[in-house]
């Protein structure tokens, strides 16, 4: 089983800040991590590999520092890591990104199964998985919460819906995007970390992929981010402090004085 996992390196958004003047993310001092949904994809690929035998190749597009994310994936047990990195890839939207990833997968060749997280936590589009599948001309299923059975030919799985799930059977090759219910990612082992340190990270650029430069990066991106901004903080408001009994009384008075009709019962002072 030849498995590819597409991952994205993202800023750890638990402490991300936006520069209000340039409307871009402030990256200095912000740790980069593997997109959390992709961690589930990596884990699932390793589980399939352990069951079926095969190889897991981690694929990512991005600047050279994405190598750290790829090494982390290798420390978890992936066999190979490939970085698609070229100035020409910069500024790619989801269409151009999925094209470049698809070209990478085509160059790897003979891929049976492609895993991804359901979306990246920075862009939240969820479009790259389906996009890669379209560029490759193969099916995709999103939001997988369980792989029930898998063979060289087909896979039976559960796809999460808003209420409940649907059980599906599909032929390989296929792109699957996973949700966090699917597994609990393992922690890296010491041997894995040591292997990761020495691992060879293959880097492919535009020439390796024979990409049409009109279709990748900024050139190939019909959508562009105009502005990123934090939602404005709510202004005004009033805080009632003191003992709960007193502050509730004060609140009720304020509401009444403001002419707000209160509901029945429970407002006796």
């Amino acid at each position, binding site marked *: 089983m030849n498995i590819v996992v597409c991952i994205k390196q993202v800023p750890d958004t638990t402490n991300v800040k936006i520069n209000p003047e340039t409307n871009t993310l402030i990256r200095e001092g912000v740790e980069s991590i593997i997109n959390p949904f992709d961690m589930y994809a990596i884990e699932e690929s390793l589980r399939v590999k352990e069951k079926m035998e095969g190889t897991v190749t981690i694929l990512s597009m991005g600047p050279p520092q994405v190598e750290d994310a790829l090494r982390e994936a290798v420390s978890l047990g992936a066999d190979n890591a490939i970085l698609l990195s070229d100035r020409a890839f910069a500024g790619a939207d989801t269409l151009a990104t999925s094209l470049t990833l698809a070209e990478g997968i085509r160059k790897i060749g003979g891929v049976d199964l492609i895993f991804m997280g359901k979306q990246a936590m920075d862009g939240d589009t969820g479009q790259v998985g389906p996009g890669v599948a379209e560029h490759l001309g193969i099916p995709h299923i999103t939001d997988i919460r369980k792989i029930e059975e898998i063979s060289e030919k087909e896979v039976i799985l559960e796809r999460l819906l808003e209420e409940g799930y649907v059980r599906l059977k599909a032929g390989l090759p296929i792109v699957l995007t996973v949700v966090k219910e699917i597994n609990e990612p393992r922690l890296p082992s*010491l041997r894995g970390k*040591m292997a990761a340190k020495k691992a060879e990270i293959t880097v492919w650029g535009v020439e390796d992929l024979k990409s049409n430069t009109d279709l990748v990066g900024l050139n190939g991106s019909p959508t562009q981010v105009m502005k990123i901004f934090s939602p404005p903080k709510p202004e005004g408001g009033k805080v009632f402090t003191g003992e709960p009994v007193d502050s509730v009384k004060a609140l009720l008075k304020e509401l009444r004085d403001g002419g707000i009709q209160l509901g029945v019962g429970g407002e006796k002072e």
Partner: protein
Amino acid sequence: MDYFLTEEQQMIKETAAQIAKEKIEPIALEYDEEQKFPDEIVKVLGDADLFRVFIPEEYDGLGGGVFEMSLVVEELSKACGGIALSYAASGLGTIPIILFGTDEQKKKYLPKLAAGEMIAAFALTEPNAGSDASAIVTSAKSDGDDYVINGTKQWITNGGDASIYTVICMTDPTRGARGSSAVLVDKGTEGFDFGKKEDKMGIRASSTRELIFQDCRVPKTNILGKEGMGFMVAMKTFDQSRPGVAAQALGIAQGALDKAVAYSRERHQFGKPVSSFQGLQFMMADMATQIEAARALTYQVARNVDAGVKNIAGMSAMAKLMASDTAMKVTTDAVQIFGGYGYMKEYPVEKMMRDAKITQIYEGTNQIQREVIAMNLIKESMRKKG
């Protein structure tokens, strides 16, 4: 303070720290309350290769030593001294095999211990033989190609959960300490059973049980070293394992200090965080200083042990003595900083104070440690005078 760890040691420390934070800390209070053995954490530690760190490379280990093991024990102990003990006690059970095992014994046990597929235990203490280890009465009688073991071992850490036990027995009771031998006994051997599980003050996640031997027959090839070397096996093992106990104490102490400092910044009294009061500041300063001093000693001793320095008994005892007394003091002060909340079970320092106490008692009480240190001093003085 920078202890100039190698890249590999740093990796070991970080791996253990991540497990402590993500896997152990969230469950520590529950396991303490329920006295549950941490099977799934042992699996996580095994999968992370942490049991490999102190096992030679030719037996699937990573070739480190006591220092690497101590780094792991310290990190795990920051989250739970009890769960860390299950790891450390497996180390204690593994050390005699590394030190005295034949190639065959090593091949049989070390790869599985390295993978965390099995854990080990060490059995010396008996109801009437604690500090006076030479008073043991568990016997291993020669019978053809076998030993037949009879007797009871008490307070054995990992008892029941370990797969392999190094048991110190009397092979020749007429010779006292020189008549003892270390014998390997597999769990499941006929005549080898487990008694009651102890209900303890602290380190409650680790299991502490009686081992009961009734005409338990093991082949003579299970001996570690030679007949009569049992006491020496035990003492050499303790020389190597005491830095591990020191590391456990250090971890508990550091964990308590970290919690106390964080709490002192959150807790407000008289309109200010309590960290702004000098009374607490001085306490925290002393706690940090004592921990750092104990750490410097422990690390240096562990490095001496690994470097093969001779006569490590005294320094090894010093590390255990100082770190464990520090842990008791620091955790007691941490409870004080938490005030009334510190006395409550919902807050972590109450458990840390209970966990710290045992480090002053086991693997030689601190009184025995002082005796070891003093004996070394006196011997050294006699040697100098000639």
